[in-house]
């Protein structure tokens, strides 16, 4: 059991959007190096929860601390959050290369009125190598496949020297091999850079196979624990209002041993 100070601390958070309660009684902590998966049905408030952590939505009640500070007061560099959104909708002909996109991740570290220097470009190239996109630096981002684009966005997040990655359904639209590769890459980056990861996904099995903890929410937290505990049909039935017959005993046995 770790006693490190939590990187993310959410206490009794409630969020209303347009007068409707979206989240309530949300309480959890994430310690350094953890991989936490957030699951739940559509409209459960998963993306809103990530937006609260990013400081894009202010909760009506409760406190949120990321790196010990309110999200809106986060600093740059190591205290910045790396964010990989669900397949972003961008113009595929937007004239930027992979290198240009990854450099965008340095924008906050550099600050206003400052131009990228050689060290910044070196960090960009290193991030591109780390996600396995070496050789793709000059390619236009819109020419890449979905999986390659998500790796480029992951490199953009890494380039900010973050220690905390938030992923919002980052595997949506990817085929199974690309999805599997992305999770394998996340595990490697987590190990190499001591990253803490919070990922929202609808893919219960893939997320369950990689995360240390799963949190199932539908407005509020239904169950929070290790994947073997959470991924039971009777645990998820209430949140999803349907049966999960595919969560078989065989699958749980196959994932019982930590990776």
């Amino acid at each position, binding site marked *: 059991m770790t006693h490190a100070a939590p990187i993310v601390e959410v206490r009794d958070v409630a969020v209303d959007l347009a007068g409707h309660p979206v989240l309530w009684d949300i309480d959890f902590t994430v310690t350094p190096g953890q991989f936490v998966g957030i699951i739940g049905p559509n409209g459960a408030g998963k993306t809103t929860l990530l937006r609260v952590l990013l400081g894009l939505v202010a909760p009506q009640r409760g406190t949120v601390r990321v790196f010990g500070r309110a999200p809106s007061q986060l600093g740059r560099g190591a205290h910045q959050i790396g964010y990989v959104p669900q397949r972003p909708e961008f113009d595929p002909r937007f004239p930027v290369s992979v290198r240009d996109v990854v450099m965008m991740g340095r924008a906050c570290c550099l600050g206003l009125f400052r131009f990228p220097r050689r060290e910044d470009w070196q960090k960009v190239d290193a991030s591109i190598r780390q996600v396995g996109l070496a050789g793709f630096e000059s390619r236009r981002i819109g020419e890449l496949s979905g999986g390659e684009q998500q790796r480029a*966005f992951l490199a953009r997040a890494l380039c900010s020297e973050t220690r905390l990655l938030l992923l919002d359904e980052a595997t949506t639209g990817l085929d199974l091999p690309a999805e599997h590769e992305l999770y394998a890459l996340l595990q490697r980056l987590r190990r190499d850079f001591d990253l803490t990861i919070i990922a929202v996904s609808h893919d219960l099995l893939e997320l369950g196979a990689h995360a240390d903890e799963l949190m199932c929410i539908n407005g509020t937290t239904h169950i929070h624990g290790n994947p073997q505990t959470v991924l039971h049909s009777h645990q998820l039935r209430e949140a999803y209002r349907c049966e999960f017959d595919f969560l078989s005993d065989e699958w749980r046995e196959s994932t019982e041993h930590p990776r």
Partner: protein
Amino acid sequence: MTDVLSYGFMQRALVAGILVGLLCGVLGFFVVLKRLSFIGVGISHSAFGGIAIGVLLGVEPLIAAAAFSTLVAWAIGWLSRKGHLHEDTAIGILFSSAMALGVALISLSNAYQVDLFGYLFGNILAVSPRDLVMLAAIAFLVLGAVAMMFKELLFIAFDEEVARANGLPVTPLYFLLLTGLALTVVAAIRVVGLILVEALLVIPAAIGYQLAQGYRGMLCMSAASAVLSAVVGLFVSYYFNVAAGATIVLVLTLLFFLALAAARNRRRSAVNPMVVSQRARALP
């Protein structure tokens, strides 16, 4: 040609054309990539209200237009950002109201002797030394601000949500861009007029978008085609005695169709890069 340039009005027109071309080419880059072209139309048409206020109050019409257009640009941004209205609805309401205000004020002031045609369609040959100073000041301010915040503006144009999540001051930068757009529109009124200014904002960047592979190339082509059309349009209009603003826009339109044809040819002859590309190496 040297004879023509011995005239002071032609020298001023040439400098004004180059400055406005540079300004519109650079701002147009963001207008096209951030899809702000309808906002550009709204801002340029609303400048008429500012000109009328200037005429009525006895203030330099272009200075009044700069202040009024900036206010309208901010109002469009505020209404659409706060989610009160869709952006196109806000633009539709504000630009037609501002034009209506301009017509009403002009009719109240009985100021029909003012060169309204010059404001609507431009009169580059009438650029005064004072206009040139104002134009140079706007160009210095706007191009300087864009250069200093280029990486942030590019990030916002590409992915506003992630830029905000990464801690960039997206809303202030957006309003700064709108302000730059309003000032650019006012600077271009003397050259092409407020009816045609949208062409200078959109067409050069569209030419760059067709031809360039990267954003640096697009930016350079956008600025170069805007400057080229301003210079060529100026001389063509002088020798053939046609309206300069309209000639500049027609030269740009010709350049755009040439760029479109060149881009189509290139796409046809190119091998699909997705097919021959090296795929990402398998992960260890």
